[in-house]
């Protein structure tokens, strides 16, 4: 399988001495949908900034589809499309001009660029806005415009830095569908997001970065398998004054109609329903307490935070 992105021992120390990346290495395979997650300030945007040539690295190597960013930058950049976190297009330009101009930077003739801009503007629901200034677009439309712009040169690797930040649920879902579609057609996608539900829903592999270090790099399935216990929220009837006893399960009554039950991976839910039913308690609805990935993410990041804190006190 071809490697779409290879990062080796990447370091970045900013001018103020802050070490944003401490020698990270990871690979993303062609066709993958990869999530790069981490808390604020972890180094995600610095990593993607270096890959996108927007940030100068201190040391290390970056290759895009085998093209080294130092020695073969032109070819590497042709393979790469970037959707940044913040709006970075000319607010005074017309929507269509932004796309055609971007294609021009890749040496694509205007006639071909016009065809592609029509395709992507239609695909992303912006065709009616093509003649208006980009500043008149709503936030969600601006995000879609940046996605269209990144695809104008038909890159094999697409990087999206929090593409759905501030986008409403409906629009987010339609963007997910679009990203799934282009991924299915062969575009490798790397995504950073704070919506862990988004990463869980879309991505097959996941890398978690914290304090400039990769702390996890695995498949989504393997990562979720690390989760031993899930908490379910059960809406019950009739009202209870005390928590109904559930043999083998940890349960807590919250209010008089809500029961929180911790279920281990080896346990099933059937026993919960059976025991409640035997006590005359009916389960009217049920849901997860929180996103599964979110629980894992928090535990992993907390663990590294703990290690760092421990490391800090050792030095003292």
């Amino acid at each position, binding site marked *: 399988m071809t490697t779409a992105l290879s990062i080796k021992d990447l370091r970045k120390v900013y001018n103020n001495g802050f070490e944003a990346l401490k020698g990270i290495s990871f690979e993303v395979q062609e066709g993958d949908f990869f999530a790069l997650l981490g808390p604020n300030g972890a180094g995600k945007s610095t990593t993607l900034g270096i890959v996108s040539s927007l940030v*100068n690295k201190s040391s290390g190597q970056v290759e895009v589809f085998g093209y080294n960013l130092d020695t073969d930058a032109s070819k590497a950049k042709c393979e790469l499309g970037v959707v940044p976190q913040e*709006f970075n297009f000319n607010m005074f330009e017309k929507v269509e001009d932004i796309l055609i101009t971007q294609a021009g930077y890749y040496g694509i003739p205007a006639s071909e660029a016009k065809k592609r801009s029509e395709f992507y503007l239609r695909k992303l629901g912006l065709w009616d806005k093509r003649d208006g200034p980009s500043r008149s677009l709503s936030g969600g439309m601006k995000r879609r415009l940046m996605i269209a712009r990144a695809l104008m040169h038909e890159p094999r690797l697409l990087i999206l830095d929090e593409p759905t930040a501030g986008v409403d649920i409906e629009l987010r879902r339609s963007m997910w569908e679009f990203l799934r579609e282009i991924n299915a057609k062969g575009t490798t996608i790397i995504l950073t997001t704070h919506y862990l539900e988004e990463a869980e829903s879309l991505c097959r592999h996941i890398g978690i970065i914290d304090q400039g270090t990769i702390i996890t790099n695995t498949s989504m399935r393997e990562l979720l398998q690390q989760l031993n216990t899930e908490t379910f929220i059960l809406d019950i009837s009739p009202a209870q004054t005390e928590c109904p006893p559930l043999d083998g399960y940890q349960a807590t009554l919250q209010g008089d109609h809500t029961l929180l039950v911790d279920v281990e991976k080896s346990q099933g839910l059937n026993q919960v329903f059976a025991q409640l039913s035997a006590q005359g308690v009916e389960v009217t609805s049920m849901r997860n307490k929180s996103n599964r990935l979110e629980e894992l993410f928090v535990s992993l990041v907390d663990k590294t935070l703990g290690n760092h804190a421990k490391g800090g006190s050792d030095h003292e």
Partner: protein
Amino acid sequence: MSNRELFIAFWTILVKEIRRFTRIWAQTLLPPAITMTLYFIIFGNLIGSRIGQMGGFNYMEFIVPGLIMMSVITNSYGNVVSSFYSTKFQRHIEELLVSPTPNWIILAGYIIGGSVRGLLVGLIVTLLSLFFTDLYIHNFWVIVSVVFLTAILFSLGGFINAVFANSFDHISIIPTFVLTPLTYLGGVFYSITLLPEFWQHVSQINPILYMVNTFRYGILGVSDINIGVAYAMIIGVIVVLFSYSMYLLNTGKGIRQ
């Protein structure tokens, strides 16, 4: 990128630059036309008629080449400094940085874009000057070459200013405190032969003097300085500014973290 792709990238930047200054023509093309018309009326007609001869020509004829050159200088510089700084400020410089467009094409696109505005304003001012005086052509090639080289030189100056600028104040400091005084003292309104010998030598440090005089030579056939020296100086400064601009782009000064 192939040569054709490089040309498309260059053309894209150039068209974008031209589209920018023509879209805001009321800020870019109209003001110099009005300002220079006032110069022609006040300095050329009203005051000039009392001054008499300057360098063997009537005052209006003498100042027209200088005023054309002044327009080219301020507009070439102003175009690149404001356009490139806005590109940095609004962060759409990132559109270029992520693309395979090489740095020398980026620089060439902005510099030629700035030069086109400088030359266009120069042409507008030239046409306006025809309402006030006849225009001679002593040497066509000197006129064309020096005005083009001057536009390039000041576009490069504007680019360097924009790279270092961190606020909109920074893009007006150099034009206000350096460019304008040098232009006014660069022989636009007077022949340096009117100055005491010491100040004539001091004036020769001013690079704008060389450009204005070479241009005036192309039109009127008179100059306070040696034309060959002027060309060498202008080309030398262009080479230095171009090399420095490339160094700034390659190291990412002001545009990459």
